[in-house]
Each structure stands twice: as C-alpha cells, then as structure tokens.
C-alpha cells in the first residue's frame, strides 16, 4: 500500500513538471548541433526541447507529410523548401521575432528558394567536390579527372542520383538541375562509360576508405572530406573547374505547430553568433551565420573546403527541385546505371 502511494505521488510529480515547462519538438539532421546547445537553451529559457534526428530529407518529409507528426521545427535542404511550401507544410516566419536575422551570411540572406525568408531560415550549407590522395593520384581539378583510367578501381562516386548525375551534367557543361531529357540522357551515357572505373557508389563510407588508403579519389561532400583530411593529411580537396553543386539546410516551422512563439525563440537562439559558433565547432560544418564565422579560429574560417573563397564560390550552383517528369527520368537513368 505504501509503495503504491509512493508511485502515485511520483507519477503526479512527473505530470506537474510536464505541465509547467513548455516543450518544443525539434527534428534535425544527425550530428548537426553543439553538445551544449540544447542544455544551454533550456537553462536560459526554461523551454524543454525534445530533439530527434533524421539521416536524409526523404525520411524527414515522410514523417511530417501527414501534418500530425508532432514536430515543431525541422531542417530541410533548400531544394525541399519549395515542395514543402507547396504541400502546405510550412508556417510563415515572423521576421519581427528574429532579432538576430541580420547575422546571416549575405549570400544566404535572400536565397533563390525563399528570397524573402518567408518560410525558412538558412542554418548550414555545404557543397560537393573531389577529395583525392595527393601522393597517389596527384592533384585533381575537374570532374573529367574522375573519368581518367589511372583511377580505375580506386575511385568512388556518391550513391545519390542528384549528385552523381549532377557531376556528369556539369562535366558536359549543363546545369546541375537540368530537366532537359537530352541532357539527362547524355549524362547517363557519361556515367555508364565511367562505371568500369568506379570502385563503388558510396556516401559517408568513402571517408574511412580514403583515410585507410583504399581510395585515390572520390566524389564527396566538403564537410565529410574535411573530416577525412583532418585524420589523413595526405588527402587534398578541390571544387571542380566545371562547376559544382551546393546545398543549404534551413530551419523551418511546420504549419502543424501550435508553439509558434517558442519555435521563433529557438530559431533566434540558433542565430546568435556565440551559439552558432559553438555548433560549428562541434559539427565541423559551414555555418550560414556570418557573425558566428568571425568568432571561429582563423584556420577554420579560412578553410578552403568548408568556406571556399569567392572566386571558387562563383562556380557553385544551388540544387533545385526537378519537375516530377524530369525527376522520374533521372531516377530511372540512375537505376539503369546502377544495374548496368
């Protein structure tokens, strides 16, 4: 009997705290936050954060698509903002509540996918390039170098239709987002020609094999490449001369959220320079926050892989969503490439 009363009072207590502290549900990419960020936010504001992670945009979209996922804030990539907005999944951002918005990098203050930041606030960004073993492969400069016989069996491409086909499109001088059937067919032919040279289609797994020395070259994201370079100084990196793809991940408030004020407070907190700087120190990614960048050590903020200089950035092209018919064609070509 006494034990029962004890448990009853315990559950009552738990109920109390749950009611008192407001709770915010945040759904972000894995490894995309500082170790202390959430604890500090809770301490400062008294708002509890329920934090969950996803591994790719499709997984996130599948969860929130129904409109009753329970999440308040999510972090889609830029090419998912348009589709999510048109699917009426996004709430409007009230700029008046974001006093730190001015800290954003000017290149991301009016992005092409949401020029007035009505539904999204840029958080991190990154790009795809080539990482290579300086001693074994020499210096690589262009996508065309990944078609060189001398890398046969020692080179990987990303296991992702947008990135792999995008590289072939760039090699041919087309846009990374070209919906043109003839362009896509030509890009497919390039990748089929390249396949005998490709060791495998790998994503993050390529990092370990670059460090171990199994690979001479790989198409890889800048942030992942930088992690490999940190561990193995014999690796080098290049953003290809033909141009390359760039993406940005953005904070959005879901339309289903009933905690718009809390959500704005959280996003504004992430925009604070000290907070954003702590996040990139832990996650080793490129922040969309220019004021935060100024707080980073000089070798980080001038790292050419994470923060390429302006003349290199000029060659970058943002990923954009394809029209459905072109997306279907690209997926089909990708299936053909992988099964060839």
């Amino acid at each position: 009997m006494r034990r029962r009363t004890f448990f009853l009072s315990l559950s009552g207590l738990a109920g109390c705290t749950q009611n008192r502290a407001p709770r915010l549900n945040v759904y972000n990419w894995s490894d995309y936050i500082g170790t202390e960020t959430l604890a500090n936010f809770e301490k400062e504001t008294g708002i509890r954060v329920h934090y969950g992670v996803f591994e790719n945009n499709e997984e996130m979209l599948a969860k929130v698509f129904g409109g009753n996922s329970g999440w308040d804030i999510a972090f889609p990539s830029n090419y998912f903002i348009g589709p999510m907005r048109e699917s009426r999944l996004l709430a409007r951002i009230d700029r008046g509540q974001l006093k730190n918005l001015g800290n954003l990098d000017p290149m991301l203050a009016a992005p092409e996918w949401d020029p007035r930041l009505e539904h999204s606030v840029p958080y991190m960004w990154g790009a795809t390039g080539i990482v290579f073993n300086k001693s074994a492969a020499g210096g690589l400069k262009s996508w065309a170098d990944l078609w060189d016989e001398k890398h046969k069996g020692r080179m990987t491409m990303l296991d992702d239709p947008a990135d792999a086909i995008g590289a072939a499109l760039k090699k041919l001088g087309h846009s990374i987002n070209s919906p043109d059937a003839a362009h896509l067919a030509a890009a497919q032919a390039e990748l089929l020609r390249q396949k005998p040279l490709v060791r495998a289609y790998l994503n993050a797994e390529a990092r370990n094999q670059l460090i171990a020395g199994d690979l001479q070259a790989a198409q890889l994201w800048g942030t992942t490449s930088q992690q490999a370079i940190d561990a193995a100084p014999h690796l080098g990196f290049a953003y290809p001369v033909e141009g390359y793809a760039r993406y940005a991940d953005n904070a959005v408030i879901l339309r289903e959220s009933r905690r718009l004020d809390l959500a704005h407070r959280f996003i504004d907190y992430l925009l604070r320079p000290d907070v954003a700087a702590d996040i990139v120190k832990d996650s080793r990614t490129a922040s969309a926050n220019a004021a935060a960048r100024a707080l980073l050590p000089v070798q980080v903020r001038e790292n050419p892989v994470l923060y390429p200089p302006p003349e290199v950035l000029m060659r970058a092209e943002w990923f954009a969503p394809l029209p459905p018919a072109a997306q279907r064609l690209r997926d089909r070509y990708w299936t053909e490439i992988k099964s060839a």
Partner: protein
Amino acid sequence: MNQLRTWFLAPARLLTFGFFLAPLAIVVLYSFLTRGTYGGQGAPFTLENYTRLADPLYLEILVKSFWIAILSTAICLVMGFPLALFIARSGPQWRGTWINLVMLPFWTNFLVRTYAWMFLLRDTGLINTAFQGLGLISQPLPLLYNDGAVILGLVYGYLPFMVLPIFSTLERQDPFLLEAAADLGATPWQTLWRVTVPMAKPGILAGSVLVFIPCLGAYLTPDLMGGGKSIMIGNVVQQQFTSSRDWPFGAALSLVLTALVMVLLWFIMRRGGKELI
C-alpha cells in the same frame, strides 16, 4: 472447450491481422494510387504502377536477383548438408556444442557482421594485407564490391537457416537403416544418395526455402558488399521509398515480389514438399 480455444488463439489472430494482413492491405491500396507531385500519394486509382513493371529494366533486375538467390541457396546447400550430416553423426555430447556454434553469429547484429566482412575484404583489409605480406600477391585482390562479394555475404548470413532444418531431419534418422543398407551390399556413397538424402529431403526443401526467400529480397548485403554497383530488386524497392519518393511504385514492386515467392512456394509444395506442412 471451444471458448478456451478462442481465447488461446486470440493473440495469434490479433498478431496475424494487426501486423500482417492490415499492413499488407495498406500496401495493396498504395500500389493502386498515384504518386503525389512531391511525394505522398492519392487519387486517382491507377494500374500504371503495375504496367511500369513490364519494363525490361525491372525484369532484368528481377532475373538477376533470382540468379543471385538461386546461386546463394545452392552454395548454402553444398556447404550446409555435409555440416548438418557431421553434426547429426557426432556423439550426443558434442551435438549441442556444434549447434550452438552454428547459431553463435546470431548473437551479433547482421549489420555489424557485414561491416566486419568489409573490413576483412577491403584493399587494406586483413586478407589482402596478409597475402601481400606473404608475398603471394603484389596488388590487392578486388574482393569487395562485386557480385562475388554479395553472394559471399548472403551465404554467410543465411547458412545457419540451411544447416538447422537439415540437421533436425537427419537427427531423427534411424541408424539401423544405414546398417541395413550396408548389409544389403550398398557402398557408403550409395547409402548416402539412396537412403540419407531422400530421408533428409523435407529438411533440404525447408532449408532452401528459408535461405532463398530472404536472399531474393536482400537489400543490405548488395548495398554494402556490392557497393551499390550491382543492385538487386530489394534495392530498387528501397530506392522508391527513399530518393525516388514513389511509394505507389515501391508498393507494387514489393507486392509482385511477394506474389512470385508465393507462387514458387505453392509449386514446391505441389511437387512433393507436402512434408513441409
């Protein structure tokens, strides 16, 4: 009595309905829907997801998946039968130990074990490093990221499912039958082919089915050990639910795969697998 029966069967019925039939019904429904512009699915109802399957691209991948599954099953049989025979014929004090050793890998997650194989087979992995150290090869052998690696991974993963059913049929075999065969002048080979193997047939069939079906639908092994270079039908299904965001087509693909397996099972049972049931 009858009421008791109802109650005892209730959990099984609930499980069958809630975790098998209801989800399957949702998959069937989805397979007739149209893909939304940005993912999701909705009206109108359509057969297009099924007509798309007639595309030679998917047929080729399906045929290749069957070949890989058949080959893996055959290798499992060739390796598993002697092993099962050995365990069944070893003394009772050893049997438990051998069976436990066969089951031992299940104590570790399959994904972890697959990564362990990748570490062994890599260019700078244990096998290549050892061979190079011994001077047997000058260049690392391409052990990973090909069909051979996929089959190796499948055989490794599903071999116990072949060994256990064969063992259980051989264990029950009456040793006097072997003596009788020998007394009647049969050589050991003849005894094996004409006495032991026919009696083990239900185990062989059950083992083959248990290995073949997961091999046919495999997606983890071809993805990791094949490096995405030689995909099987399971990978195509997975791709529809992820990067392609085409759930209706993915649902249709997986249903066709299920139907093919069911037809195959029905055929096997008709052809003399009645002992299976």
